[in-house]
């Protein structure tokens, strides 16, 4: 009798596995057609950005435009995009001196002496829109995700404000919005690019140092640029699948 019960329980256990399999199959059946988005097909784009370091003049237009367009908190430590100034004593790639006063919002007052043998340049930073994003992997509630068009977005209604993603981002691109206590980051001006406009930072950049590109559009000039320039992504060893391509990036940039 006891043995019969044991086998019965074992068999029930196996059938419970089957329940799980059936549940998964049912899930698959339920996943129907996505909601129709008028004029914008989310699966027909794959957004990326080119950042030409050799053209950046550190004017801060992008930082100001981004804050205005996306209503980023105006305190000087909240940014969706910011500009860094690198200062390298000759040949010392290991110890760059980096500053970013107010993220470059007010420009960069000169603070280095002429003729000190150093190298100086600006590097604009923003969310790299990673294809294999560490911030997405750690989100416990699916509130941050890689959209099918290659942008990394935040679902503000489901974000808990747990800050895992803020720590996970290797590029420091995320912050907690003090007004909503949810996470915020560059969404590549999603409200603009889905209407056929470029991002606010690209719109305001006077030198064309930043250019939005759609890798799924064969006519986009980004393809020509990527073919003809030696580009690099930030922290390639982390294999994040970054889609912010830097031209003329110095080896000292972190």
């Amino acid at each position, binding site marked *: 009798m006891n043995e019969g019960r044991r086998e019965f329980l074992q068999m029930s256990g196996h059938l419970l596995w089957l329940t799980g399999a059936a549940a998964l199959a049912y899930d698959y059946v339920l996943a129907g057609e996505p909601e129709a988005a008028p004029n914008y097909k989310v699966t027909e784009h794959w957004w990326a950005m080119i950042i030409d370091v050799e053209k950046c003049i550190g004017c801060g237009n992008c930082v100001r435009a981004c804050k205005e367009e996306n209503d980023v908190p105006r305190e000087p430590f909240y940014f969706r995009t910011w500009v860094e100034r690198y200062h390298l004593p000759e040949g010392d790639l290991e110890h760059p001196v980096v500053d970013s006063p107010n993220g470059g919002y007010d420009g960069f007052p000169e603070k280095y002496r002429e003729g000190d043998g150093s190298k100086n340049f600006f590097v604009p930073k923003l969310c790299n829109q990673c294809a294999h994003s560490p911030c997405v992997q750690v989100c416990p509630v699916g509130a941050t995700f890689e959209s099918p068009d290659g942008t990394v*977005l935040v679902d503000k209604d489901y974000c808990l404000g747990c800050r895992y993603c803020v720590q996970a981002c290797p590029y420091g691109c995320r912050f907690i919005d003090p007004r909503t206590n949810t996470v915020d980051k560059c969404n590549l001006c999603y409200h603009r690019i889905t209407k056929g406009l470029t991002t606010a930072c690209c719109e305001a950049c006077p030198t064309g140092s930043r250019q939005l590109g759609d890798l799924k559009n064969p006519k986009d000039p980004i393809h020509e640029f990527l073919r003809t320039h030696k580009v690099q992504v930030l922290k390639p060893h982390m294999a994040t699948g970054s889609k912010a391509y830097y031209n003329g990036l110095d080896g000292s940039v972190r």
Partner: protein
Amino acid sequence: MGRPFGDREHLVRVALLFAGGFAVFLLLRALLVPEGFGVYGHFRVAALDANRQRPLVYAGRSACAECHSEEADLLRSGKHARVGCEACHGALARHAEDPAAQKAVRPDSRSVCLVCHEANRAKPAGFPKVVVADHAPQGSCADCHRPHAPTPQ
């Protein structure tokens, strides 16, 4: 070895257990999984639309050129061809929507030009830079340079 499924009753019990488990799963799934979750991936489809719900602040240079075609043509002819209108005149989406709602500002050339052209060691070598205190201690930049097509005059 006993006969675990010798009785029909046992089979029925297992079937009921299975059906019950499935019903509980369906109920929990309906209660817990938000609408549109999993259509494209591990997120709600509605979040895509939520990200699109934001009014424009920058209209974009093509919107400007629809009315101000003369200025746009002049701009394209000169060295400032890459510079967007709103890079100097400020964000003007409301103006593009309704010209009466928001007035474009004529920027003070001495401050707006120097945002880009004041000398700084970190600026690229080829970019035109001046130390304004030496270059023109007083006056407006527009006295000598046309901002829309700044060829030397």
